[in-house]
């Protein structure tokens, strides 16, 4: 299953398929599926029992056949969404090395050595570097609440946050990567999280800030009103409490929280090069090339 935008129908069928359930199409637009007790409990709480779930995606059919309606905002969709969203907190995946055309990479690496120097490959190997995919939920709380999900990718070798989203079709689930070929990460997870949130902050910084202005304006006018109300009274503690309450309610906020993450193994091409300097002197150098970050590291 690849990421991307899916419809409600796709989501439900993918969910059932992952639960190893096969819905039966009983009539146009209406399906039935026998759901076991464990899943029903997940969906409807501890009292639920195994049952035949009849569902549809159309209001009219739901009324005609007494099927459960699965549509935007419906109860059943919400219970399915709740179960789905509890899954996949952490996963791992890799980008297969075959995707990259190694001879082209080798050529590019050798060209990058410089015009006045020559180099040839003594030997080469394939390693894997680690990336952290973090989905971060960002809530902008002003007069309204606006939520967004940011998919960030952090290079765990450098701590760098990629400024683009990896195309989902490149990523394959699970890992067939040999352990010994995985390069150690140099960036801690918490540093990676910190970098990701900082990157989102600067992204938001470049965006529209009217919502902050509006909320601050409202806060200022409410504060003024409150101050007038308490003017001349001796109930300072009450005023402070009300002021605190007001600030808590109206101060614009940005809240961030990670919702899920995945370790992504990315092929790193290693070359042991013999570099011939203009004077004819030869040096041996190790070069790691990361095709995702398009970064070379020379040792």
């Amino acid at each position, binding site marked *: *299953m690849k*990421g991307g935008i*899916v419809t409600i129908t796709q*989501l439900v069928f993918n*969910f059932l398929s*992952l639960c190893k359930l096969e819905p039966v199409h009983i009539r146009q637009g209406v399906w039935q599926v026998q759901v076991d007790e464990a899943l029903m409990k997940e969906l409807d709480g501890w009292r639920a029992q195994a049952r035949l779930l009849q569902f549809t995606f159309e209001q009219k059919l739901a009324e005609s056949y007494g099927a459960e309606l699965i*549509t*935007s*905002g*419906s*109860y059943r969709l919400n219970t399915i969404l709740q179960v*789905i*969203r*509890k*899954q*996949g907190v952490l*996963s791992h995946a890799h980008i297969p090395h075959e995707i990259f055309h190694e001879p082209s990479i080798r050529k590019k690496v050798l060209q990058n050595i410089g015009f006045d120097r020559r180099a040839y490959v003594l030997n080469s190997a394939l390693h894997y570097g680690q990336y952290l995919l973090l*989905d971060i*939920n960002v809530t902008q709380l002003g007069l309204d*609440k606006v*939520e967004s*999900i940011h*998919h960030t990718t952090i290079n765990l070798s450098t701590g760098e946050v990629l400024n683009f989203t990896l195309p989902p079709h490149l*990523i*394959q689930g699970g890992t067939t990567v040999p352990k010994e070929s995985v390069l150690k990460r140099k960036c801690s*997870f*918490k540093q990676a*999280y*910190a970098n990701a*949130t*900082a990157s989102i*902050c600067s992204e938001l*910084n470049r965006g529209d*800030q009217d919502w*902050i*202005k509006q909320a*601050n304006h409202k806060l200022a006018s*409410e504060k003024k009103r409150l*101050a*007038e*109300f*308490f003017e001349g009274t001796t109930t300072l503690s*009450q005023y402070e*409490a*009300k002021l*605190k*309450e007001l600030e808590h309610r*109206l*101060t*614009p*906020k*940005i*809240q*961030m*929280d*990670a*919702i*899920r*993450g*995945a370790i992504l193994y990315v092929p790193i091409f290693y070359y042991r090069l013999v570099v011939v300097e203009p004077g004819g002197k030869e040096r041996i150098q190790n070069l790691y090339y990361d095709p995702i970050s398009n970064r070379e590291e020379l040792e």
Partner: protein
Amino acid sequence: MQETFTDFVINTKKDGYSCPFSLEISIQGFQAIVTELRKKRFDTWDWFSLARCGDQLALNQQQSPELLALEYLKERWQQSGVVPYPHQIMTAKQVIGEMQGQAILADEVGLGKTIEAGLVLKEYLLRGLAKKILILTPASLLWQWYHELSEKFGVVAGIQRTQWDWEYTDILIASLDTAKREPHAPIITSIPYDLLIIDEAHKLKNNNTQAYRFVNTIQKKYCLMLTATPIQNDLKELYNLIGLIKPGQLGSYRSFKERFVEDKRTPKNPQELRKLLDQVMIRNRRDEGAVQFTKRLVHPIILSLTPREQEIYERVTHFVQTTGRRAGYTNILPLITLQREVCSSFLATAFTLEKMMVNMAQEDLAIAAGLLKDLAEVKQNSKCDALEKLIGELEDKIIIFTEYKASQEYIRYRLEKAGYRTLAFDGTLSRGKKQWIRYMFQKDAQILVSTESGGEGLNFQFCNQVINFDLPWNPMRLEQRIGRVHRLGQERDVHIYNLITKDTIEEHIMYLLHQKINMFESIIGELDAILLHLKLGKSFESEIMEIFLAHQKQGEIREKLDLLGEQILHGQAQIKASSWELY
């Protein structure tokens, strides 16, 4: 490499922003990821990709400008027959969008303030804007709130029982009277709530009360206050209420008085005041066509007592009048009860009389003993005969209301004997039992015999026939009875059958409630405010009793009741004129 989170400081730059804001970076989600990593628990990439799609889909739903709760609850409401009214949806949108969750919901009685508050609550929950929620209500409404939230909104709240609940239950329903007391109050005020809902908020109209001071100190992000009567006697009440959710909205009290108060009940600059009120208060009115209520159809059934019953009635009335006059109208509560019971059933009268005899003066004791003997001997009950006949003619579910437990038992005995299956409902039942009986009534039985206290706080919209076996003297209590079935969600016209015994005090009560103030067919609404406005200085029942004790001629009694009825109508008009022009 081991990660530690204690020294986790994230360097983020806020400098680029032109305005101040706060940045909160949570490590909760990140910690969960790292924990999985340490335990080497990797999910498959397929699940990961699906979860990502799920995140995006959920987010798209969240960003919808429409209320998420409406879509979410659509099916639930279809199944349970709940139809949200446009004014309720508009109100919820306005509270969330324009009022930033700080509002007084002041709809007139019966327009569904609870539904509006529930919608706002659900919306905040779905949007992830509220987690810790406190609902403060009168104790009698705790279970009603619980069921409304659970049945209509799929929100399972807790009902506060111990002092630990405040901290450990995210959505809690509690009685305001309990909450304001030690040891609860300090715990509550130390907790920051996302949403605070206060039902019957007019109880907080006085800023010198403990309840007001307590609510004022609760830390809250969003606050909803529900009341049908934001002003009862004084504009200051409204000022106080608004001060709880948005202090300063109407300026300081001094400036408020100068700018907006003509006298206690008359506003100055009503247009300007309304503008300010519109920012914090929403009031939907019935006459604006917000809701089309079904009709109330009244069927008075006048029945005659047998000569023997009539004779005993007269004797009991005479006994009540002489004893009451002798006592100088003081301590007349037992006498009122006796007089009311004699119109209900002789069994109930006998029980009360027997209790009264313990402290009775010697001169009355012989009369009371004679009465008691005669009451016990009468086997006939014309009212119950009429009731049996009426039930025989009715189909569908019926609620029979009586004020007295003895009458309730007698009615059930008679009906069961006649082959009807009945259920009993009274104030002594536990909350769980009440719910169970309500469920049984809805699913199975045809007849529910209830005392008023039994029906309090529970709704029976699935039933549309009410029989008043006896009439309460207080219009508030009558409205509460009818309000159990005639409210939002009732799809059929409601039939109210009143069993009235001819030539008794009941006939006069019926005249006052039905002909004079047209209590049955129209919802008077704000009755509690009106009765308060009358400033009787005693209970409404005592007022009526005194009329009976002071006057023997039927014409005089009628005249006095006319006057009382006029007072009620006048009070209603005055309240409307003084405050309602604001909304």
